[in-house]
């Protein structure tokens, strides 16, 4: 065996030491790139998280969810101590939207916060999952019946599979609608083109349809998008019960179905003036309907569900003009608030547009839901504060006025006969 040449050994040592130095410099450089962590230890979890290192500029998501109490991880998931974006976000729930219905039970703390019984007041998730806005079962049932895929209008399918073990409507379960399993091509087309507005469907493309899925479809209005920055990417970091009508319009005023082609025809016009442009051109509307926001009249159980599976919209939407205005021979239903735990106080705290006090009299619906933003004045009139706009209105009940409307005919179409606002009919 020939002895190794000293020069060769020195050369290899030189290369090895050079590589070692290079490796150490690379590690050092990598460490220097990592930002100094901003630690937060939320009181609810007691576990330190570093999310604020990059996301400190995000606004508080709501007064009910202060970051010092909740932190970020409890809702969003993610790797709490990671400082590298890909790793930190690798286990996020629902991507950037933890309210997506596929993950909402984990994100919104399940039985600890937004899941439970109606008696506990924590059945939000159950109500949403069984609501028609999630199941879309009315449209599915109607179209399947029309095209002969089912013999009657009994709800069988929904946009998602869901059961209701305590059904009060007789509908105890819905099977997930699968367009591919339909034999009629038009029903397949219906599945492809017309199922884009239930709560967990990705919206259609375009600003007019801009919304999220799940709870955020309504409670994170896209009109509140943040300015673009490196960390928030123009997202909405807000949960609110002050939902403007524009958010409702992302589903409810987008266009029409063409049942001949089984396609969705998007509106081509861009809404500018609410009276003329925002609603379907042929409909009649009274001033309330184009001045107020949808949530000023329609209740939480109408919009978010009441925990039961319903067959269609007509079966659970019940608020009418008379709910607030009464009839010729009846005042609207009212309730004087005495219990500090009354639901009206809780709802008013979530969206403090009105300073409700014990002793105040508010309007309630025929199902007993509080219209907490409408309070009776000493002179018998009512004051109303817009939940989204904070606009102030007063109105008087029908009783004692010159109105001659038959108390038995109270659907809005009857009120429209006298009170519809003249529209400019910009649309043919």
């Amino acid at each position, binding site marked *: 065996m020939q002895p190794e040449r000293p020069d060769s050994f020195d050369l290899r040592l030189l290369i090895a030491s050079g590589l*070692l130095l290079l490796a150490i410099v690379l590690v050092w450089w990598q460490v220097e790139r990592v930002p100094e962590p901003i630690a937060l230890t939320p*009181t609810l979890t007691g576990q330190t998280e570093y999310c604020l290192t990059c996301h400190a500029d995000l606004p508080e998501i709501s007064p009910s969810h*202060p970051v010092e*109490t909740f932190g970020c991880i409890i809702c969003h998931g993610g790797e709490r101590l990671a400082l590298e974006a890909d790793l930190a976000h690798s286990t996020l729930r629902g991507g950037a939207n933890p309210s997506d219905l596929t993950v909402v039970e984990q994100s919104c703390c399940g039985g600890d916060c937004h899941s439970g019984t109606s008696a506990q007041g924590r059945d939000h998730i159950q109500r949403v999952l069984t609501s028609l806005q999630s199941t879309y079962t009315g449209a599915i049932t109607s179209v399947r019946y029309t095209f002969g895929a089912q013999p009657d209008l009994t709800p069988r399918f929904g946009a998602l599979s869901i059961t209701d073990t305590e059904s009060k409507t007789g509908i105890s379960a819905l099977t997930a609608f699968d367009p591919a399993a339909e034999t009629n091509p038009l029903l397949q087309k219906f599945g492809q083109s017309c199922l884009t507005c239930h709560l967990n469907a990705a919206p259609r493309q375009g600003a007019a349809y801009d919304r999220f899925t799940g709870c955020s479809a309504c409670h994170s209005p896209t009109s509140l998008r943040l300015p673009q920055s490196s960390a928030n990417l123009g997202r909405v970091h807000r949960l609110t019960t002050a939902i403007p009508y524009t958010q409702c319009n992302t589903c409810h005023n987008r266009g029409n179905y063409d049942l001949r082609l089984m396609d969705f025809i998007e509106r081509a016009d861009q809404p500018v003036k609410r009276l003329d442009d925002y609603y379907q051109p042929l409909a009649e509307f009274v001033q309330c309907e184009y001045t107020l926001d949808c949530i000023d009249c329609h209740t939480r159980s109408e919009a978010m569900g009441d925990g039961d599976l319903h067959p269609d919209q007509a079966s659970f939407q019940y608020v009418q003009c008379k709910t607030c205005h009464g009839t010729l021979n009846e005042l609207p239903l009212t309730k004087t608030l005495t219990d500090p735990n009354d639901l009206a106080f809780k709802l008013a705290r979530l969206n403090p547009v009105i300073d409700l006090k014990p002793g105040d009299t508010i309007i309630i619906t025929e199902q007993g839901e509080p219209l907490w933003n409408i309070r009776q004045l000493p002179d018998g009139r009512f004051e109303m504060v817009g939940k989204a706009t904070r606009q102030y209105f007063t109105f008087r009940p029908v009783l004692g006025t010159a109105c001659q409307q038959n108390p038995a005919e109270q659907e809005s179409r009857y009120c429209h006969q006298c009170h519809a606002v003249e529209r400019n009919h910009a649309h043919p």
Partner: protein
Amino acid sequence: MPTHNRRNFLKLAAASPLSASGILTLGGLLRYLSHPAHPTPSTEFNLGPAENHPPGSRTVVAEGSALLIHDENGFRALSLVCTHLGCTGEATGDGLLCPCHGSCFDADGQTHNDPATKPLHGLRVEINAKGRVALYA
């Protein structure tokens, strides 16, 4: 170039990166060891002379999330941490309101309305020999 000069040069060239590596590694180690740990939040708060808190006064100790009360029974303190989810409550009048979910507590920390169902925690208050008020959160 003579052989021993070339060898000396290679040895020197190899020793330099090794030395630099050693220095960098040592520097990194020292930096790691000297990195300050997250400070443990204080649990004792000196609230100054007792006469600064006359009878009838209610002093919010923000850094301790506490409310110092001086009433006819002397000094006592309540935690401002809501027993519902742990948000920090706000002193209102003679009671306390949690801004998160609207729980209300009376002057004694008892629940006035839900969602909180448990009273606020009482905290220890001491007047030391120099007449200063110390609160233990």
